[in-house]
């Protein structure tokens, strides 16, 4: 079992397990005759996409955004509002969602990145809360009852349809893989090194001549746009969007997924999303009031294993770090 002792190998095994589970879920659902699992895993991968995007700013950039669910909301509401006016063209929806998310992230990032530490946490939270209340106060788009989307996005071709659960599933799967690949490349690029350098020592990066504000802002926008993709997909899975998608607890859950999987590890957010779902499923079988167990569990994870599952992998068998 010498192979298992190397960290790299353990990471590879975990990656194969996690990605393999996602890749094979519809087949397993078919064999078990449980089509319900397809949508469940679709949802899970959308969380994963949001968590991957959050990991870019939180894990690599050290920016603790407590308002990331906003961008899920932007993506989902773009599809919802277009659908409200009977426009189902996928490409139009996608481009608009990306543009709106980028614009909002530019403005909100520009405001919040002027601040540091606790201020940043609270401002990102407050700005998301602002949009949440805005979405509640607009009666035209359903206020807190939300919008029902009567038709899913249309690709303008017969080759692929959002209405086919399996095709939709693999489309989400591909987007997730693309997001993983993108963040993998981004983190290893010059840009990624600057972002990581800014996290560990901002002053030094400034001295080296980098405008850290601009790098952070671009990273913030990229994360927002990626998360909005998740929102677009979410609206297509649920055929429904409501302000709840932007609720601040959703942002907290996303942070927990990132931390649980292991911050600043590429695959961490996906592992985190998967384990998060397994846990919530497991705890809610024990009692209807599963938050009673889940809350203290979350605290224990923070206290005992702040580096998450990825951190656990790097502990040697002998028990020493």
């Amino acid at each position, binding site marked *: 079992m010498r192979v298992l002792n190397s960290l790299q190998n353990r990471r590879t095994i975990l990656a194969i397990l996690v990605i393999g589970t996602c890749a094979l879920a519809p087949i397993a659902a078919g064999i078990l005759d449980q089509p319900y699992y397809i949508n469940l895993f679709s949802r899970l991968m959308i969380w994963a996409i949001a968590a991957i995007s959050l990991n870019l700013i939180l894990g690599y950039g050290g920016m603790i955004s407590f308002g990331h669910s906003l961008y899920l909301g932007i993506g989902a509401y773009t599809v919802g509002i277009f659908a409200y006016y009977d426009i189902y063209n996928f490409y139009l929806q996608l481009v608009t969602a990306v543009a709106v998310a980028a614009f909002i992230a530019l403005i909100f990032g520009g405001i919040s990145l*002027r601040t540091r530490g606790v201020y940043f946490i609270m401002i990102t939270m407050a700005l998301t809360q602002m949009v949440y209340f805005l979405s509640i106060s607009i009666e035209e788009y359903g206020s807190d009852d939300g919008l029902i989307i009567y038709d899913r996005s249309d690709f303008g071709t017969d080759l692929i349809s959002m209405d086919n659960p399996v095709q939709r599933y693999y489309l989400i799967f591909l987007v997730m893989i693309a997001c993983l690949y993108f963040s993998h490349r981004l983190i290893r690029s010059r840009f990624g090194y600057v972002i990581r350098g800014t996290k560990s020592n901002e002053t030094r990066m400034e001295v080296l001549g980098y405008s850290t504000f601009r790098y952070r802002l671009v990273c913030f926008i990229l994360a927002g746009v990626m998360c909005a993709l998740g929102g677009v997909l979410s609206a297509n899975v649920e055929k429904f969007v409501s302000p709840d998608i932007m609720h601040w607890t959703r942002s907290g859950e996303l*942070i927990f997924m990132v931390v649980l999987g292991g911050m600043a590890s590429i695959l961490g957010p996906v592992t985190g999303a998967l384990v998060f779902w397994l846990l919530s499923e497991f705890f809610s079988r024990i009692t209807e009031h599963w938050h009673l167990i889940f*809350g203290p569990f979350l605290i224990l994870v*923070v206290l005992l294993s702040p580096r998450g599952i990825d951190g656990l992998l790097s502990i040697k068998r002998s028990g020493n770090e």
Partner: protein
Amino acid sequence: MEWALLIEQTLNGIQFGMLLFLLAAGLTLTFGIMDLVNLAHGSMYMLGAFVGATIFLWSGSFILAILLAVPLVAGIGILVEISTLRTLYQRHHLDQVLATFGLILFFNELVQVVWPLDGLSVPFPDYLNFTVPLLLGIEYSVYRLMIIGAGIVVAIGMYILVAKTRLGMLIRAGAADRTMIYALGTNIRLLFTLVFGLGTALGALAGILMAPILGANSGMGEQIIIIAFVVIVIGGIGSVRGSLIAALITGLIDTLGRSFLDVLLAFFIPVNAAEAAAPAISSMLIYIFMTCVLFFKPQGLFGSQTR
């Protein structure tokens, strides 16, 4: 008539501001001295409302409810501090945010288990349930005036505590340099626990006072705690004076915005458009105000430059 409404809404705004101050004072103290981001402060407000309401409904005495519920909830807060939060002081803000998020989930669910109905509705205490005439024939609720009074008393008390007492001296010293007062021999653990208990007591008091107006519901803490965050960000984290001023401004902007924004907007755009846009804009007003303040002063109105 319009003037009477304006005065009444101004008083409502001040009352809301005082409530926010009660919450923000505790938050800003725990942050200023312990460097702890405590999202679960709203849970203590919620517990205050539930415990206070239960004692009030059971005994019929509102004063007894306050006298019993405030120390009870402060005790729960101290237990939480000793069991969980104490180990978090030296940790990263992210860990604090997540762990206190876990506390919120726990307490929200706990309240639903202990009080299984859909929240509690609480009557006004009889002796405060009347109105007094003010200027221009306005009748104003004595209960709301009492909340304003309570806020003023707490503000004065906090000033005396922080500026004039030995404990206050330690609080100020701790906020300026934690390591130094530890090195000088202060029992810093005890100090932190005391300050946390004090903050919790203020939050619980706010909860009881609001229970007759809003009732007690699971999740009531978060709605208001995010606004309390806005308040301490505007006021400058760690500054009690800043949180008082910011709380009053925020309370007034929110309340007056909700009542008069449509009238104000109608000067600039057509009346129908103004009436349609006003609710949406007024729900965002305080956040817009926060953004404006931070744009010019990223550390808030009274924040120190070091943090």
